[in-house]
């Protein structure tokens, strides 16, 4: 009987949704995302129909790097972008071609995302903790990337100079992993998904997680100024995302222990959705759950710090601050 009632309710909802979409001529939008679990709420909202219920017709466009998403938002190929902050994104935002409207994944203690890894030789000769990275040769993907910034935060925390570290940009994760395995660098910053196969085959040693050492706001939701003129679209999209953020936080993140989410009756359906969109088996998804604020809040103070750091390093053009790149009417500050 309850099932019948639920069905009827769903039918009514669908009808109502159909009604609203007709009235609004269906608010269509494209979101650019990466196939990473740090965008999990987007996948949940899409798969469970939260966007549709909000009267939105959302198409997901998948990219294979963070930078092109920011470029695609600027050029109008996608309406919204959800990915990590990069120096390139700030440079575009500084020119006013996109604005941040909400928070996404974060580096937070207890939720492994990016880690510091040592080569076997370097580990054997005394590189045992992240603090020891001072003065070492460290591989990152690109200058001004999340990995580079994480290293900068670590340098601030342990009071060593980033200039003392030899930062080697190798352009891709596979190159960085190869350099670590081939003992040509002492250490590398890698995401857990790249590092796990390396550790399992004995190609690298684990030093620590960035989230445990220096938590920071990794990802965000952003849109072009043109998209922002469509207030109903932005409001509905953010509401649907927050609904998914909340569910992801309460179900999956609440079950994380020792860096891994539990697989049980409650978490399994959501984990399967994430697995479907990231093309990973559920067993790998559980160890790869980025922390996301349940209310979609953004750590504005940290974003300001990121911009200042990148400007200091010369990676981001000077002359703008965090206020210039936020769409204040939408951002919920932490």
């Amino acid at each position, binding site marked *: 009987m309850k099932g019948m009632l639920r069905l009827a309710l769903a039918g009514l909802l669908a009808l109502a949704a159909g009604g609203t979409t007709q009235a609004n001529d269906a608010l269509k939008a494209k979101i650019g995302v990466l196939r990473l679990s740090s965008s999990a709420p987007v996948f949940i909202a899409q798969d469970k129909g939260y966007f549709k219920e909000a009267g939105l017709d959302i198409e997901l466009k998948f990219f294979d790097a963070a930078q092109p998403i920011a470029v695609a938002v600027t050029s109008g190929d996608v309406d919204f972008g959800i990915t990590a902050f*990069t120096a390139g994104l700030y440079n575009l935002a500084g020119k006013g071609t996109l604005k941040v409207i909400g928070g996404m994944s974060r580096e937070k203690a207890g939720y492994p995302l990016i880690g510091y890894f040592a080569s076997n030789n370097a580990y054997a000769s005394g590189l045992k903790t992240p603090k020891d990275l001072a003065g070492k040769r460290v591989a990152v993907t690109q*200058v*001004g990337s999340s990995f580079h910034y994480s290293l900068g935060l670590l340098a601030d925390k342990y009071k060593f100079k980033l200039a003392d570290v030899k930062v080697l940009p*190798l*352009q891709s994760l596979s190159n960085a*992993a190869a350099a670590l395995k081939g003992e*040509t660098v002492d250490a590398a910053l890698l995401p857990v998904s790249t590092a796990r196969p390396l550790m399992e085959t004995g190609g690298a040693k684990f030093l620590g997680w960035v989230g445990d050492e220096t938590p920071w706001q990794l990802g965000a939701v952003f849109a072009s100024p043109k998209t922002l003129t469509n207030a109903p679209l932005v409001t509905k999209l953010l509401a649907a995302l927050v609904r998914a953020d909340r569910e992801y936080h309460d179900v999956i993140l609440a079950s994380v222990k020792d860096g891994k989410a539990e697989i049980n009756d409650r978490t399994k359906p959501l984990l399967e959705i994430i697995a479907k969109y990231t093309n990973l088996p559920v067993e790998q998804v559980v160890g790869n759950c980025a922390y996301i604020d349940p209310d979609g809040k953004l750590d504005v103070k940290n974003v300001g710090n990121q911009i200042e750091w990148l400007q200091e390093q010369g990676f981001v053009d000077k002359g703008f601050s965090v206020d210039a790149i936020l769409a204040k009417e939408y951002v919920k500050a932490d």
Partner: protein
Amino acid sequence: MPSARFFMLERPAQDTRSDASEAPRPVAFRGEGFTPRAGRHSGWIALAAVIALWQLADSAGWINPLFLPPPSAIAMAMWKLATSGALWQHVYWSVMRIGSGWIIGTIAGIIVGFAIGLSTLARSVGITFISALFPIPKIALLPLLILWLGIGEEPKIATIALGVFFSTAISVYSGVDAVPRNLIRMAQSFNVPFHAIVRRVIWPGALPSILAGFRITASVALLLVVSAEMIGAQWGIGAFVLQAGNLMQTDQLLAGVVILSLFGLAVGKLINMLEARLLHWR
């Protein structure tokens, strides 16, 4: 167009007929054309016109400067780079890598190319290997090159040398193949020793095609410096271009590209001089 061609074909026939009946009449010289020469100034004038139009389009606001920065912004970025001293570091490292990679690749390519051109065994084995290995994109091999050679200068130079090697080997053996056989036969009939035939007949005969190959390989080396400097380079024009791309600093990106094309122009001039010196007998 076809009708014009027919007309030209029919013309001589008409002429012969008219020759028979009338007195010979003056005919304009027809042996002109088909000898293009590079004008001294027209290339630069065209370049200046394009740059002026580009600047105009940007200052008039027809183009978003983020998508295509104006020439003035690119010049500004280059000026900043030059005054900060970073430019010379970048140029020094890139020239070092391009130079050593090109020289290693060229020497190996000439040796292998001559071997293929002169020996049956080397030909049958060599051509197979070159055809199989030439089309492999060197960028796809970067992780392997890092494992084999580390991230020092070796993999960067190896990337360039590999790209240069295959093109050189191919242009050398086609050059050797193109040396007129009757010249070789004549030398043989005068009982000239093998090494002298190679040095006095085949080498000068193949040289024009080898130098044409240099033109291509020099550009290949410039193209590959960007991929080579993907491997953990802190300095170098390629590294600079990559970093500017990663950071979406489009004016600096284009400044790096302009420096690379200036390299290309300089190398082209250098090869012109080399051709003038080595091929003066032509």
